[in-house]
């Protein structure tokens, strides 16, 4: 007796708590924050229901390996130079570092230096030709570091404290993929795409020579441009046509790595510019650079494109401005990119899906309609077929739905469009547990048991197939979760939660209801 009261009481308490959690989902965020007795956050809506954009970006990790090899090549080159050894060939070829030397004793020395680095292993052996590659371990580390760097930069760009996007998501997917989600209509596709793909590598280079076009520039250097220099262009933002050609050294005089901050500012004519600030070391280097080059133009190059090339009028300390016929928006975006840092390896957009809010609202509406229709059908069927016991089943199924919503709120899971379909499906399938029990009870009654005994036997015998059946569907839900992407993961989560609550409501809740009536009473006939 007390066992029953306890069960009934806990079930009721659980129901009340979960109902309150489920209902809280309908309160707006302001209401939630205002009242301490409402949880701060609940179930989230997937992008396919609230609208938004979702990208899957691929990071080119091979480039990280190439950069590392290039860095090692440079180091080996300078080490050999110190020892007055000149290799006939020292180059990076794919994922290999090739060293060819004239004299065998030089080869031996080169081999020693390579071994000292600790990260090179020999890929081929020859007398005068050494071929190296990165060790397995180091290669993995380099790729991993590249990935983490890119993830960090993208996070900073999207979640930027000054103009970051609320509720955005930047997470890693697998070894080399990044998932970015921007909900709502907060950012237009084009801008967001640029923010994600732009490398953001800022360089400051003293201009050796310039001309309005490439032909004119080349005409000034009839014997060709020096090997360690290159031509970079300034382009008009709208038409993308080159409006200036600059001859600069390939190696930058200073890079954006030394920046500590970047903000949108307005110059004397109220035009937007990007003001930047160097850190201590950068400030010192910049001071030296500008001091030595007063009167010459300094090209500010972003991703190999010249933004502007003002003349250096005097020594500049640690601050400066980049001007360039920006709109306010463009200036703000550039500031974000500079603040976040540059991507060490390129990323490409491999998947882009965007959903307008109207479509999402449509989906929610149809999902709600389908759930109500299913629920009503289940009610009608249950009552007509099982009478009073059908009422119990109807209660169980309704509670089931409430529990699912409540649990999804607790776990802050995301409801997606397929997830909504999963809910409807669960409503249709949840009755199965009760059907199994009721059919069993009917059977036991037919065999001549008393109502009480029949109820007990029905539950005892039916629990096992209910558990088994739902457990197997749970297995498929887990597999779905592992192999699915966003919306499908949402379906798997909703399905899985639904399976757990179904077992509970079918077995525990219905039992309690039966124990309340008929309970211990002597009844001749069971309304089932």
């Amino acid at each position, binding site marked *: 007796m007390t066992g029953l009261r306890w069960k009934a009481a806990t079930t009721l308490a659980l129901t009340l708590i979960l109902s309150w959690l489920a209902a809280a989902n309908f309160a707006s965020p302001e209401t939630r924050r205002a009242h301490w007795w409402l949880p701060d956050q609940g179930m989230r809506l997937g992008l396919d229901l609230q609208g938004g954009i979702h990208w899957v970006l691929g990071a080119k990790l091979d480039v990280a390996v190439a950069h590392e090899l290039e860095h090692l090549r440079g180091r080996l080159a300078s080490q050999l130079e110190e020892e007055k050894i000149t290799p006939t060939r020292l180059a990076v070829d794919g994922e290999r570092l090739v060293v060819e030397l004239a004299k065998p004793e030089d080869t031996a020395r080169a081999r020693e230096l390579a071994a000292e680095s600790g990260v090179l292993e020999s890929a081929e052996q020859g007398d005068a030709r050494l071929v190296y590659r990165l060790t397995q371990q180091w290669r993995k580390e380099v790729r991993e570091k590249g990935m983490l760097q890119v993830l960090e930069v993208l996070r900073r760009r999207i979640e930027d404290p000054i103009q970051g996007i609320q509720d955005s998501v930047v997470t890693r997917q697998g070894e080399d993929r990044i998932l970015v989600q921007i909900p709502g209509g907060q950012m237009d596709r084009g801008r967001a795409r640029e923010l994600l793909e732009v490398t953001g590598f800022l360089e400051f280079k003293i201009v050796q020579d310039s001309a309005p076009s490439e032909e004119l520039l080349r005409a000034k250097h009839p014997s060709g441009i020096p090997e360690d220099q290159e031509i970079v262009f300034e382009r008009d933002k709208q038409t993308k046509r080159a409006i200036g050609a600059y001859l600069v050294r390939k190696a930058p005089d200073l890079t954006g790595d030394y920046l500590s901050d970047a903000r949108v500012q307005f110059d004397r004519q109220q035009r937007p510019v990007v003001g930047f600030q160097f850190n201590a070391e950068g400030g010192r280097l910049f001071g030296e650079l500008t001091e030595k080059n007063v009167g010459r133009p300094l090209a500010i190059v972003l991703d190999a494109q010249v933004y502007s090339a003002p003349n250096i009028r005097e020594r500049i300390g640690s601050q400066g401005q980049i001007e360039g016929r920006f709109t306010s928006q463009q200036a703000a975006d550039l500031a974000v990119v500079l603040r976040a840092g540059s991507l060490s390896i390129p990323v490409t957009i491999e*998947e882009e899906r965007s959903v307008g809010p109207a479509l999402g609202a449509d989906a929610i509406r149809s999902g709600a309609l389908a759930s109500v229709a299913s629920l009503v*059908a289940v009610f009608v069927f249950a009552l007509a077929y099982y009478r009073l016991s059908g009422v119990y089943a109807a209660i169980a199924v309704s509670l089931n739905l409430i529990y699912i919503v409540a649990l999804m709120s607790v776990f802050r899971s995301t409801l997606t469009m397929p997830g909504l379909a999963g809910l409807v499906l669960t409503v249709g399938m949840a009755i199965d547990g009760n059907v*199994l029990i009721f059919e069993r009870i009917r*059977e036991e009654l037919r065999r001549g048991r008393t109502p009480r005994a029949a109820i007990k036997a029905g539950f005892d015998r039916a629990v096992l197939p209910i558990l088994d059946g739902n457990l197997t569907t749970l297995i*498929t839900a887990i*597999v*779905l979760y592992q192999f699915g992407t966003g919306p499908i993961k949402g379906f798997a989560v909703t399905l899985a939660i639904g399976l757990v609550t179904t077992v509970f409501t079918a077995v525990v809740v219905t039992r309690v209801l039966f124990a309340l009536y008929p309970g211990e009473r002597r009844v001749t006939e069971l309304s089932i």
Partner: protein
Amino acid sequence: MPFELIKHDTRIDFVGQSRYAVILSTALLVLSLAACFWPGVKLGLDFTGGAEIQARFAPEAGADEGRIRKALEPFGLSTADIIRIGEGQAHDFLIRFQSESAGDRGELADQIRDALAKDVGAVTLERVDFVGPKVGAELRERGIEALLIASLLLLVYIAFRFTPLFAPGAIIAQVHDVLLTAGLMVVLGREFDLTMLAALLAILGYSINDKIVVYDRIRENMELHTTHDFPNMVNESLNQTLSRTVLTGGTAIFASLTLFLFGGPVIASFGLAMATGIVVGTYSSLWIATPILLWLHARYGAKAPAKPTRKERAARS
């Protein structure tokens, strides 16, 4: 008296009828296979890669396929698939085309929108999906992997919960269910995308659920009535669970059909697949899984109290 849809003393000879069922299934499976060549399997964006735009026009715009196609010409997309979705005078159009990189295709979408707004009428791009070919191929692979792994896990589960004798019947029924459902979807010309995959996996789960209820009853009867001969007992078990099978299947099919009717284009396919899968799954529980179980039991089921073997029976008569 309680209302019974299936009378409790129903005695349908499922076991006897199963030979016809096997013939039917084989025929349908062959048909499904043929359907893979004609009309052919339609793969959705998720698996092929490419671009898909759902454009919603204002009713006054009077948008139609022809005008849209003309507006798309400057982009070299006059051969794109253009489909009106929704019933009757609906104003949503699906525009599909192949593209290699997802990156600049994004800008293309904005340009397309401007062109459509200029040439056809006020439009919003409700949905813009670009899937790179690499991602498409990966999703295809993972989709098949998912089906295989789920089947394997379920097989192992059945072998553990019951005896290994029960497993082959379940696995063959599973494969049968997925292939037949997928085949019927191909015949109906439905598209295979991630949502369809989710449906197939959900059907796997439902189908196994069904088998387990039946197997559980068989096991119970085996323990209680050791003198029954196996085929007859299996038949009885099927009849005993018939009521539940039909009722639950019924509600589940109803729920799936509401999805099909009210769900909107993406979910409608899911609902149809689920409804079909439930019917197929129920059918295979009754007529396909059991003959295999019986066959295995007759050959290897030494644990069961000795039925007279064919030799002995022949010797007696």
